[in-house]
């Protein structure tokens, strides 16, 4: 009881300080340092998803039990996770984007509930389910980024609306799925809609009143991208004038994609914000000649002005929908005896990148799934003309093979070796823990026309597990300094839940069947699993309350995983069916075996629907009281 009183007092003290106009960021920074709370979606500004709590550890995690649960009342895919600020937990839902404040002192009793009124016509413009990746906290407010792109600030104590602003236009295919991110006195939001020809941007609003401070686009003239021809560098060199528009044909950049819906990070010393931009629109590469900058890029922007310090395009002229939006994880590690400020990023394209986050220098780019085949490697030779570019294999180049040609066996699939599900980093092991997809595809691009507010895709895609494998996911440990897999656990389905690493030597993540799993951080050995009510695409978090450490995760299957896997990726059976049932044995034997040779047991591909069903539930775990 004493501990509780002290904690409560200290939190209220901080809130009071904020109320008197002190810099909100200082208060938030202080709160983030307290491992008993989880005040931002990723745990810290650096995106490490690491907690210093160690009450639950590798030795006792096997005793974990469910402490309490909470139904969100919404059926669709639940990404992101809850926050804990003081004695209150904040839980969000997919559309309609309800927010609950739960009283941790009173068995999760609902303190307030906020449910915005939104036009349901936004639902079908959300390409991959009506997901929302969570709320942010700062300055006594809860920030919610709604599906219709409204950014709203709520009073954290009452749920009353303090201010709101509409960031985009749903009628043009623009939607909100990413969490807001608060750094210092600004709250940042990105936009979704790469499949609707949306030109991506990032907006920074003042947390006090919702006034727009700056907005930087992914494509367009330098005045729109906030790129300086001289001061902005890419791989150590100034980018030059019109670095975006010069890489597009005509004014295609106006519908050029480059959505910005991932997990942002921030380095307070450098005052730089990091995030990735998504695929160029359309998915048909032949229709948009050029490098299509600055889609598919890692961005470093000055927090105060939005000015771009450096930028690196990972996948110039995308031909596979390898969105570059995945999280940028900031760590300080020593490479070759030199301490470095690093940024590590696991891209959809299957390469794990490590860069110097101050300069944008490319240090490591290696495949984090051995089956990645669309490029042999990233050219690391600084004197080469193709320095920093992936060396694309013609057979898997949908540009090379052209429109109306089906390029087969491309690994990874469009959903990437990893999608938005965020990785974790433990400073104790100096390893990254990465939930991954292990899926390949056929991709056939063709011409499409653009209509505002309508899908603008232009490719037919079929996805299936790599030949010879029955697992469609892996959970891996990765050394970002060398670009090597340290250990790898197979998962039957894509590992689509965000990871959590703790000082207890345990790493947690959720699976599509609905398991919360705990593994040993050093070896990957499974220590505990529990099947929650639905498949997990949310991110695991932890907090301490009343002297007890809790681990919490939202389950609720859906998202792109829900569409890609719910019906089963039945390529092997399909191939067998085509060659068996339909042709009635008339094809020559060689052709007959072409697509099925080397594939695993048919039973291994049974659909996810056989394992789980819809429904949003929060499950909170703890060790039993002795």
């Amino acid at each position, binding site marked *: 009881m004493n501990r509780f009183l002290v904690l409560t007092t200290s939190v209220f003290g901080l809130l009071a300080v904020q109320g008197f106009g002190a810099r909100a960021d200082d208060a938030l920074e202080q709160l983030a340092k307290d491992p008993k709370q989880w005040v931002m979606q990723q745990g810290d500004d650096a995106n490490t998803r690491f907690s210093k709590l160690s009450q639950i550890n590798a030795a006792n995690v096997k005793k974990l039990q469910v402490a309490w649960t909470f139904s969100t009342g919404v059926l669709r895919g639940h990404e992101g996770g809850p926050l804990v600020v003081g004695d209150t937990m904040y839980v969000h839902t997919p559309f309609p984007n309800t927010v609950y404040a739960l009283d941790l002192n009173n068995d999760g009793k609902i303190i307030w509930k906020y449910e915005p009124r939104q036009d349901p016509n936004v639902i079908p413009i959300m390409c991959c389910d009506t997901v929302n990746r969570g709320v942010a906290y700062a300055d006594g407010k809860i920030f919610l980024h709604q599906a219709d792109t409204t950014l709203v600030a709520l009073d954290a104590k009452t749920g009353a609306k303090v201010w709101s602003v509409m960031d985009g236009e749903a009628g043009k295919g623009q939607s909100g799925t990413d969490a807001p991110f608060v750094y210092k006195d600004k709250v940042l939001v990105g936009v979704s809609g790469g499949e609707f020809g949306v030109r991506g941007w990032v907006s920074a609003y003042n947390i006090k009143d919702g006034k727009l401070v700056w907005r930087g686009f992914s494509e367009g003239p330098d005045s729109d991208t906030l790129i300086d021809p001289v001061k902005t560098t890419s791989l150590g060199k100034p980018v030059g004038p019109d670095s975006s528009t010069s890489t597009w044909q005509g004014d295609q950049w106006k519908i050029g994609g480059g959505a910005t819906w991932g997990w942002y990070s921030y380095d307070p010393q450098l005052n730089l914000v990091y995030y990735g931009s998504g695929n160029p629109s359309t998915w048909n590469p032949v229709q948009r000649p050029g490098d299509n900058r600055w889609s598919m890029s890692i961005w470093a922007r000055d927090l105060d002005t939005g000015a771009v310090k450096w930028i690196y395009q990972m996948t110039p002229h995308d031909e596979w929908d390898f969105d570059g939006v995945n999280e940028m994880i900031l760590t300080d590690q020593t490479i070759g005896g030199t301490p470095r400020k690093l940024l590590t990023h696991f891209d959809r394209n299957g390469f794990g990148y490590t860069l110097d986050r101050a300069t944008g220098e490319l240090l490591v780019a290696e495949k984090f799934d051995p089956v990645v085949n669309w490029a042999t490697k990233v050219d690391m030779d600084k004197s080469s003309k193709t320095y920093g570019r992936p060396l694309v294999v013609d057979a898997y180049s949908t540009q090379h093979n052209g429109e109306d040609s089906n390029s087969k066996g491309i690994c990874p699939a469009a959903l990437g070796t990893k999608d938005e599900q965020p990785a974790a980093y433990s400073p104790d092991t100096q390893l990254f823990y990465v939930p991954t997809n292990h899926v390949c595809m056929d991709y056939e691009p063709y011409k499409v026309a653009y209509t505002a507010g309508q899908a603008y895709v232009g490719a037919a895609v079929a996805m299936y597990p790599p030949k010879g494998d029955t697992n469609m996911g892996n959970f891996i440990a990765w050394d970002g300094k060398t670009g090597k897999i340290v250990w790898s656990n197979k998962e039957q389905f894509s590992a689509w839940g965000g990871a959590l690493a703790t000082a207890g030597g345990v790493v947690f993540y959720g699976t599509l069947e609905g398991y919360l799993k705990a593994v040993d951080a050093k070896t990957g050995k499974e220590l505990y699993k529990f099947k929650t009510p639905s498949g997990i695409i949310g991110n695991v978090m932890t907090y301490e309350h009343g002297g007890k450490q809790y681990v919490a995760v939202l389950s609720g299957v859906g998202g792109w995983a829900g*569409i890609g896997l719910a019906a089963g990726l039945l390529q092997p*059976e399909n191939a067998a069916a085509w060659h068996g049932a339909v042709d009635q044995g008339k094809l020559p034997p060689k052709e007959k075996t072409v697509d099925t040779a080397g594939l695993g047991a048919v039973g291994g591909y049974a659909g996810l629907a056989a394992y789980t069903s819809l429904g949003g539930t929060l499950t909170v775990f703890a060790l039993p009281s002795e």
Partner: protein
Amino acid sequence: MNVGRWKLVFVILASVLAGGTACADGSGDPAVASSDNGKYADKNGNPTYKISADGTVDWYTFSGFRRYHSDCHVCHGPNGEGSSYAPALANSLKTLSYVDFNDVVTNGRKNVDAANDKVMPSFASNVNVMCYLDDIYVYLRARANDAIPGGRPPKHEDKPEAAKEAETSCTGIK
């Protein structure tokens, strides 16, 4: 021509029997009754698929496979098998007629209440869909009748000149 008449009766009987059992969907019997430049229609004039014994599908079924897997599958799942938030159209077309199909795609549909938030948008202004309505329909019709399995049809008839001309004039893309 008594023999010929008997043959005709037999064919009608056979197709009625087939239509009354496994091979009927929201538009009736999908059996091919006529063709026009590689585009097939059932006895009611509704578009339908043609699958040859060697697995070759007609152009429109193949085209529908592609269009479906570009503009529809992101919600309705691969092969028309549904997702966690949109119905399996391979099932829906067992009861949905050609006319109703066109109506829903063109005008959209809403099913929003406490338990559901399903919204089908209107595709009326999307030429990538509207110019291929029949293609998508016959592909899903073939799926609804289990005439083809999931996945990409390995062989298809050549693209008819009529399809090329219709595409150019409808989409405005050359």
